[in-house]
């Protein structure tokens, strides 16, 4: 449950009005909708092995790992963290998060669902627009179809599709996420756009061009883009970089960009944000925070100062981003609902899940397999 320190009231914000007037093809791109329909049509009935969802299964969301492990040498002297000063004057804060989940397996491939949430706080009220779920049947056939489409459709060039089906989920997810991020950056002005993850791009599934486009649009509208990583694999002296703020008991941020950028000397992987470790509240958790590199350090600090004045920052994490995560995440019940939808809509027949461990070892298999 959210612990709110401020009263939250409702009012129709400008962005809210704008988004509510949008047609679906603005909230979700047609090509993604068509891709979903097209991929699902390839199912053609048949057997479907649903993903088992039990209460013991804590982690349902399928994380897409892109961040490389990086150990930074401790030859550099680390600066003292700079205190974060609240900047008076509220601005609109928007946050985008996208979740993906495996729903099951067909005879030809894997079934996934995607959902994105755009949450924004204006004044004291929070608003959201949630898009999805979109179901996708990922198989080689679809990968080939995507490649063909990519040459024929400009929109699809937003993502360069690979025939490798194992990368499809990552690309689909990035496509939806970047679309929604671009929507937020385009529609918001003089606000803060919060993203989940880092501002690193340049992998095959996460091309630089799209993040660049998002950041450009954001700057044109006077927005600041700040990305929060819940987990980071950047280490310094063998410890996670977030540990650098262990002793800080005040809101502060530490610029570690100068020790990280040398690790990424050239393309393809580019750090498009300046990397900080930040603690937004005195007793909050420290996070890796990437802020648009094109903003000056002073502007970046001001943006963080405006953020903590404009949003609730419980435990050092912005409420807007937390809500975006909560709203986009799939619960086990929702996975069951999607499975039910698939069986009704596409005539899929549920196939019993064969557990080799259970077949071989019976009750002596491991608990998760045997359950």
């Amino acid at each position, binding site marked *: 449950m959210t612990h709110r320190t401020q009263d939250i009231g409702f009012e129709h914000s400008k962005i809210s009005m704008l988004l509510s007037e949008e047609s679906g093809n603005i909230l979700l791109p047609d090509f993604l909708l068509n891709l979903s329909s097209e991929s699902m049509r390839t199912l053609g009935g048949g057997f479907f092995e649903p993903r088992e969802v039990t209460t013991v299964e804590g982690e349902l969301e399928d994380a897409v790992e892109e961040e490389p492990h990086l150990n930074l040498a401790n030859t550099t002297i680390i600066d003292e963290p700079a205190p974060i000063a609240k900047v008076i004057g509220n601005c609109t804060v928007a946050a985008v998060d996208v979740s993906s989940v495996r729903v099951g397996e067909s005879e030809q491939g894997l079934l996934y669902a995607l959902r994105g949430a755009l949450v924004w706080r204006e004044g004291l009220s929070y*608003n959201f*627009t*949630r898009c999805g*779920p979109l179901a996708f049947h990922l198989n080689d056939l679809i990968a080939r179809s995507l490649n063909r489409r990519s040459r024929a459709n400009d929109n699809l060039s937003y993502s360069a599709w690979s025939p490798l089906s194992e990368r499809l989920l990552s690309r689909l997810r990035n496509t939806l996420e970047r679309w929604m991020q671009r929507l937020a950056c385009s529609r918001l002005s003089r606000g803060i756009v919060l993203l989940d993850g880092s501002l690193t791009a340049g992998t095959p599934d996460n091309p630089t061009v799209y993040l660049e486009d998002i950041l450009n649009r954001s700057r044109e509208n006077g927005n600041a883009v700040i990305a929060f990583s819940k987990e980071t694999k950047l280490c310094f002296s063998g410890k996670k970089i977030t540990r650098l703020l262990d002793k800080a008991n005040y809101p502060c941020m530490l610029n570690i960009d100068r020790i990280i950028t040398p690790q990424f000397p050239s393309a393809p992987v580019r750090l498009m944000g300046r990397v900080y470790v930040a603690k937004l509240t005195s007793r909050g958790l420290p996070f890796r925070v990437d802020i648009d590199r094109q903003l000056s350090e002073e502007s970046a600090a001001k943006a963080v100062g405006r953020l903590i004045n404009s949003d609730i920052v419980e435990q050092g994490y912005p409420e807007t981003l937390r809500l975006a995560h909560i709203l986009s995440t799939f619960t086990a019940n929702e996975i069951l609902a999607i499975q039910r*939808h698939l069986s009704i809509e596409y005539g899929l027949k549920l196939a019993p899940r064969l557990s080799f461990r259970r077949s071989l070892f019976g009750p002596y298999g491991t608990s998760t397999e045997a359950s």
Partner: protein
Amino acid sequence: MKKGLIVQVIDIQFANLPGILEDILRDVMTEDTIQGCDYDPFNISSQIAVLKDTKILICKIRGAIEDGKAKTETSWLPSRTNSRIVPYSIEKLASTRNGKRPVTLGRTRSDHLTVDVKMLDGKLNIITGKKGVGKSHLSKLLILSLIQNGAPCLVIDVNGEYVNIGRTKNDEPTAYADKITVLKPGQSLKFGLSGVGLKTFLNTMIYALDLPRTSSKVFSRIWNELERSGNLKLDSLNDAIRRFSCHESVREAIYSRFNTLMDLELFTDDISERFDFSLFEKKMNEGHAFIINMKDEHAISRRLVVELFISKLTEQLSEMRLKAVFLFAEEAHFYLRETYWEDIITRMRHLGVFTTFITNQPDTVQESVYRQADNIFMFNITNEHDLDAISKVAKIDAESLRSIVKDLPAHNCLIVGDIVRDFPIVVNVKPLDIQTMGQTRHFFQD
């Protein structure tokens, strides 16, 4: 259907699906604090709503159908994969509408439930439930059904609720009014010594007034002497006790109890005032209900009257002067002595006293009664202690009983036992066109 398993829904719950708690928490957390819209192009979310409201039916196996016939015992299980679930009319199972003496008890979820009133014959019954849920109403329905079919009933009415059973809501006599007699101890119910007889009188002195055994022997001698001399009257008995040659303590014991009896004004020498047990016999054998209104009666008076009647009934039944009696005993713990409980279940039952206990305090009925009961009519009970008490019933498992009884609305009762062919059934008891509220005095008249 060649073969089937009969299962009864005993509870309906929300299915505890994985992730449902997270869903509900998210809804609660966001509903008042964040507004927005969902763009769900494939309408997948509608399935989420369906799943959230998914219910699970908790069922118990009640029997089987083989060759089209229902039976309560079963020794097989159907296939888990090839079986189908089909609704089956409960009336088909429990109804005995083709019996010779049909009576409609009320409605089930789908139809009227008609049973054969014969299923109360020779049986031990219990009607229980908390106050104001319809126990007396059902017992009135049973009494009326019995007298309609020529059965004799004796009702021990503690709260004066049955006194108007022979009158309609418009205060007109019902078709069976002449088959109902209301007796008020001390007024329309007075006894003569000879009519009661030594055995009954002595039993009353012993069991209702705790007369010691030695004193009872002396009292028997006094009674016999007066009877031999043809002078068995109250005054003579009074004088005889005072003058009889015996130890002072014995005399005192007899005399104090005799005085108690006299103070209650239950006995009379006036022939016109005396309750006529011969007429009682005659009417009962023709099918009649005697209501003994014990409202506002002293506890000793209650015990005395019941003791007298039961003792007299036993005598009449043993001598085959009475065929049988359907005894309706309301809140029996107020007047029934300890030793009678066992007696009612065993000896008296064989003589022809078929008792229906009616109580809102289930724990006052002895456990053996629950175990031996042939028919149990249970209205709503929410108190755990009371549920524990009725769980001793042998005709239904405790889990079903608790699950169903706790949620019964007023006037609905769970019936188990022979009358419903051992298939537990919930019935909404039908209304009666009689004055059901008895003579309860109210302050507010509007």
